C-alpha cells in the first residue's frame, strides 16, 4: 500500500487546494493520519473511495474526540516601571520581573475516520477533521453520502459529542433520548444532580430537590417546588 506521504501527494494532485496535513503518531503503532480541511473533505474522501489504486471502499470506524480548552502557563520576562525610594527620593525605575502568564489554547472537537479497502485488502488510512470550536461552530461535512456505514456512527458522535454533520440524511440522537440536552462524552460533562424522588419530600431531601430544580433552570428560586400533597390544602 502507498505510504501516507504518497497518499497525500496523490490527493494534492487530484484535489486542488486540499490542504491535507500529515498528523504524526509518536506511539509504537505508527498509524499516522491525514487531517482534512472540512471545506475540501468530501472531495478528498470521494477521491480516496473511487481512486483505482487506493479504492478505500470500506469505512470501518468513526470516532469523536473532545479536546477542551487548554490552559498553558508560560514564564515570561516583563519590564515595568515602578516607583522605588532610592536614597530617600522617590524615583521611577525600570525593573524586569519573571511572570507566569496564562494563555488559553482554544479547544475543538475532532472526528476520526478509519478507512480500509475490501477490494485491495489494505488499510487503514486514517482521516481526521476538526471543528472551529466546541460551542457554536461545530459543523463538519457528513461522510454518509459516500459511505453508509457512517450513518449510525455519525449519529452517535452527534449524540455524545455534539458535532453537527451537514449533509447527514437523518441526524438524530442515537443512544440518548431525544429530549436529552447535553453531550455526555465531552470531557467537561457534568452529570445531572441526582436526588431521590419522594412524593412528600421534607427536610434534607426537599432542600436538595429544590436546589436541583433551580440549578437545572427549570424554575426560578422563588418558584422552586414546595413539596406537599396536591389538593391537601395545607399551607394555602
Amino acid at each position, binding site marked *: 500500500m502507498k505510504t501516507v506521504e504518497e497518499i497525500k501527494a496523490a490527493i494534492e494532485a487530484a484535489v486542488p487546494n486540499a490542504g491535507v496535513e500529515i498528523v504524526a503518531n*509518536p506511539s509504537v503503532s505508527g498509524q499516522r493520519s491525514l487531517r482534512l480541511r472540512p471545506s475540501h473533505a468530501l472531495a478528498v474522501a470521494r477521491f480516496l473511495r473511487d481512486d483505482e489504486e487506493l479504492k478505500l471502499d470500506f469505512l470501518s470506524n468513526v470516532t469523536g474526540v473532545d479536546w477542551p480548552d487548554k490552559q498553558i502557563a508560560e514564564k515570561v520576562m516583563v519590564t515595568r516601571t515602578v516607583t522605588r525610594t532610592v536614597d530617600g527620593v522617590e524615583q521611577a525605575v525600570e525593573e524586569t520581573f519573571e511572570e507566569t502568564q496564562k494563555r488559553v489554547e482554544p479547544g475543538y472537537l475532532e472526528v476520526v475516520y478509519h478507512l480500509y479497502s*475490501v477490494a485491495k485488502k489494505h488499510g487503514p488510512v486514517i482521516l481526521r477533521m476538526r471543528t472551529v470550536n466546541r460551542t457554536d461552530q461545530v459543523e463538519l461535512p457528513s461522510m454518509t453520502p459516500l459511505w453508509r456505514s457512517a450513518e449510525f456512527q455519525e449519529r452517535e458522535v452527534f449524540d455524545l459529542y455534539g458535532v453537527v454533520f451537514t449533509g447527514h440524511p437523518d441526524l438524530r440522537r442515537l*443512544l440518548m433520548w431525544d429530549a436529552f440536552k447535553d453531550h455526555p462524552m465531552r470531557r467537561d460533562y457534568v452529570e445531572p444532580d441526582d436526588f431521590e424522588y419522594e412524593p412528600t419530600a421534607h427536610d434534607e431531601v426537599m432542600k436538595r430537590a429544590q436546589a436541583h430544580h433551580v440549578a437545572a433552570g427549570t424554575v426560578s428560586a422563588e418558584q422552586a417546588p414546595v413539596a406537599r400533597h396536591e389538593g391537601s390544602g395545607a399551607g394555602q
Partner: protein
Amino acid sequence: MSGTEVVREKQAADWNRPRHIEPDGEGELLEVSMGPHHPSTHGVFRMDVALDAERVIRLKPVFGYLHRNHEKIAEGISYLASMPYTDRLDYICPLTNNWAYALAVEKLTGQEVSERAEYLRVILGELTRIQNHASSIGFLIQEMGASGTPLMYAFREREKILDLFEELTGARMMVNYMRFGGCRVDASPAWLDRARKVVAGLPGFVDEFEQLLTGNEILMARCQGVGILRPELAVNAGVTGPMLRASGVNYDIRKVDGYGIYSRFKFRVPLGDHWDVYDRFMIRLLEMRESIGILEQALKDIPGGPVMDPKARIRGFRPKPGEAYGRIEAPKGELGFYLISDGGPNPYRYRVRPPSLINLTVLEDMCLGHDIADVVLIFGSVDIVLGEVDR
C-alpha cells in the same frame, strides 16, 4: 413485482435516500412499535415499522435502552481495569472482546505476546466462534417457530464449551481472561486433553445440526430469497463478519490482517452466492466446520513455555502519547478498539467499534418489501447482542 425485486431494484439504484417503499393500494398505513421487550429482539431493542397491510414500507431501529456509556467509564480507569468490562459488551463472546482490547493495547505499547498465549487465544477464539454461531442459528430457528429442539441442540454443545471456559478462567461468561502480553492463567495438560475431546465431538454435532436443519422444508421456504443484501451495499455500509461473507464478499480479517498467528493455519473462507437469510445461516454452519479445523491444528501444535511475555507490564504503565486501532474478526464481525493515549495511566479516548451496531445499518434495506413476520427472521440473521449495540 415481488417484494424482493423491489428491494433489489432500490438497492441497485442508489444506496442513499430515499429509502422507503411507496404504499400500493388503498387504505391506511399501520405503524407498529416492535419492542423493546419483544421476544425476538434478543434484548431491549425497538423497531418503528410502518406497514401497508403486512408489507414493511419503512423501518427505523431505535437504540439506547442498554446504554451505560462504557467508553466514558473506560476513560476514567486504567487500561487494565477495562478488561473485565469488555466481557460485558458482547456477552456471548467475552473472549474475543478480551482479545480485541488486548490487541489494541499491545499495538499502542508495542508489547509482544508469548507464543503459548497466542495459541491459547486462537483456541479460545475459535471455541467462542463455534458456540456463538451455534446459538445464533438456534435462536434464528427458534424465531421461525421451532421452539426448543434446535436451540437445545445448540445449547448442549455450547454448555460443553462454556464448561471448558469455566475450568480455565473461573467463569462461564464473564471470563476476564486475557492480559496485555498473554493470558491470565495457563492451561493445564488435563484441560488441553479435555478440549481435544470436546473438539473431537464437534464435527458430529455439526453433522447432526446440518442434517436436522439444512434440508428442512419450512426453513428453506422461510429463509430463501428473504432479506437480500447486495455485496456493494454490504461493503459500503460497513457490514462485516458472516453477514458480509454471506453477501459473497471475500473479506475475513483473520486472512487479511493475519493478526496473532492466524497466518499459520489452513482454513477456507466460505462465501454465499444468494445473499439471503439462508446463506447467512449456511455460512455460520460452514464457518463452524472451518473453526473446528483451526482448533485441531492449534491443539496439535500448541508449544510449552510461559503464558505471559516475561517483559509484559499489565498494570501501572503509561503509553507514549499517540493512538492505535486494533481489530479482530469477532464472531459477529469486525470488532475494533481505538485508543488515544496522552501519556497518562488511563486512555484519553477509548472507542469500541461494535460490529452489531454497524451491521444493523442495513436492517431497513433488507426488510423493505417483506412481510412483518420476515422482519423477525432478517433481524435474527444479523446476529446482534444489545450489550454491544448500546454499550
